[in-house]
């Protein structure tokens, strides 16, 4: 957090963004910026468009309106070469790991290195082993993705995302499907990466424990109004957000005075 205060310039800026699948609008009028060194949480209830927003940030989906800026560059106005150069500075951890199933873990981690650096195969292998050791997978270099557990696949995916020492790391639901201990370890790893690599991190999640453990900035998407209804430090939002919906979400629905479900037309028995 001190990091964010020291270097407050925005790393990623989203301006007037509308997201839509064809005519079906998911979210409109999103405006926020992610500062360098932030761990930025994208949160909201299921189906509100969190993952879709992530797809817009990593360049997989073009916005229906508005812009996504990296530093000063508008991603969607840049040409293909420029866009690829921006994308190469990202690392993305997909929800299920998205490891290439026909390659071993070391080959998965090494592929981006082989493509974008002039390293020799031996060196690539050594760096791949190092990255895998960083995520606690030393010794699993020659395993195929189908031979390891879901949690390990996620960590291997992270090792691949870190392969090119990216400036920005994106995480799509990092703790989904992990047990509490593994998900805590992953949170610690995310903090560690931010502190040691100085990376900016954007995380899509609705895991409250992680949100409070790692996040220092956030945006809350709402499915009913189809726009963002809060932004800021999740801990502050929990205690001070004027919108009860956000506080209720961050308090796991334990907010007092929440509307009680009622049988219409029948008195409560």
């Amino acid at each position, binding site marked *: 957090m001190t990091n964010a205060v020291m270097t407050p310039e925005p790393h990623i800026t989203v301006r007037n963004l509308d997201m839509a699948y064809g005519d079906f609008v998911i979210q409109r009028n999103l405006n926020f910026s992610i500062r360098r060194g932030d761990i930025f949480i994208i949160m909201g209830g299921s189906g509100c468009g969190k993952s879709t927003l992530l797809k817009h940030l990593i360049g997989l989906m073009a916005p229906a309106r508005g812009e996504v800026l990296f530093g000063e560059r508008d991603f969607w106005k840049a040409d293909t070469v420029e866009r690829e150069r921006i994308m190469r500075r990202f690392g993305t951890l997909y929800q299920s790991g998205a490891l290439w199933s026909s390659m071993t873990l070391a080959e998965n981690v090494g592929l*981006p290195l082989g493509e974008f650096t002039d390293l020799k195969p031996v060196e690539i292998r050594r760096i791949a082993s190092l990255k895998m050791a960083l995520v606690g997978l030393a010794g699993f270099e020659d395993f195929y993705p189908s031979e390891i557990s879901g949690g390990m696949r996620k960590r291997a995916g992270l090792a691949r995302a870190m392969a090119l020492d990216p400036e920005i790391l994106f995480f799509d639901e990092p703790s989904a499907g992990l047990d509490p201990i593994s998900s805590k370890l992953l949170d610690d790893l995310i903090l560690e990466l931010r502190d040691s690599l100085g990376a900016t991190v954007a995380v899509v999640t609705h895991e409250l424990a992680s949100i409070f453990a790692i996040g220092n900035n956030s945006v809350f998407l709402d499915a009913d109004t189809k726009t963002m209804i809060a932004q800021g430090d999740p801990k502050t939002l929990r205690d001070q957000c004027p919108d009860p919906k956000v506080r209720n979400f961050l308090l796991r629905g334990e907010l007092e005075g929440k509307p009680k479900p009622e*049988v219409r037309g029948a008195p409560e028995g």
Partner: protein
Amino acid sequence: MTVQSSERTRVIGREAEISLTHAEPGRLLLRLAGDWKLTSGLPTAAAVEKQLESSAGTSSLTLGASDLRDWDSGLLAFLVEVQELCRTRAVELDPGDLPDGARRLLRLATAVPERKGARRTQARPDFLTLVGTESLALWKSGEDLLGFLGEALQSFGRLIAGRARFRRSDLIDIIFECGAAALPIITVMSFLVGLILAFVGAIQLEQFGAQIYVADLVGIAMAREMGALMSAIIMSGRTGAAFAAQLGTMQVNEEIDAMTTLGLSSMDFLVLPRMIALILMMPLLCIYADLMGILGGAVVGVGMLDLSPTEYLNATLSGVSLTDFTVGIIKSAIFGVLVALSGCMRGIQCGRSASAVGLAATSAVVTAIVFIIVTDGVFSVLTNALGI
């Protein structure tokens, strides 16, 4: 005896019944009796609706469940319907002595209001709309194919310029998979096709003692048409479908997204090696299929028509020209492109579910076979016009 019969009624159960009575003016009593289970037939709420309509002054409806026995979501579905009827008519619904569980479930079913706009309206489109959307879809799929072809060509351009990136080991694996691994099925199919051609020809040609021409018939047919066509159709079912399924599954697992965000072109990485492999292997498979077919013909010729192996070989050599083989081989290389293109295109376009992968595989085979047959037809016309 009596015990037995009561036992039986317990097992069979009592049918679900409703009765509607006016307890006092403006108050309707709806009594539920018997077993309200999904497995036995259930009354509809139509009777309640009729009653509510006929007695306009009703202001409240009380449920009576003293005779209600077993129940499950069948009862619940009925109650939700009744509740909706009451709501639209501004009639107060009193749950009365409804079991506690049913009351709680009913509350749960209506706790979260329906998300507006989420329910799909099933408006049946009229004939003209249907024709319109279908034509637009067809136009779109043509555009898609051309777009994909263009990207593939660009990718080839990068390959020639030495800038295309893919893994050599992938290419070798795919070459094995669509080359050597396909030999058994190609052997069986083309041998049998040659055999069948020879049989059909022999019956006709034997009638006027021209059975030696079976060798020409089989040789020319295999070399020009059947070798290329049969191997292409086999490969579209075997390899084209596999390509679509592989790439489709990669799409479902976000593996292709992972490639794109790393700045790796899925065209170079996934489509190009598959295309190269098929372009290299299809002509070889075609030559092999030609020879197997001729061998099949020879088995009939030697075994059934009393031709000697040398006679058959000589007749084949003099009857089949190099041009016939060349036409077949060129065609097979083009068929290879078509099989690889349609397989990869359907795989890359695949949706994000298991059923989408199945559809992608099916549609890859259909697309490939249609294109193969059409191309073959165009080729026949062209070679005929050019006198080749």
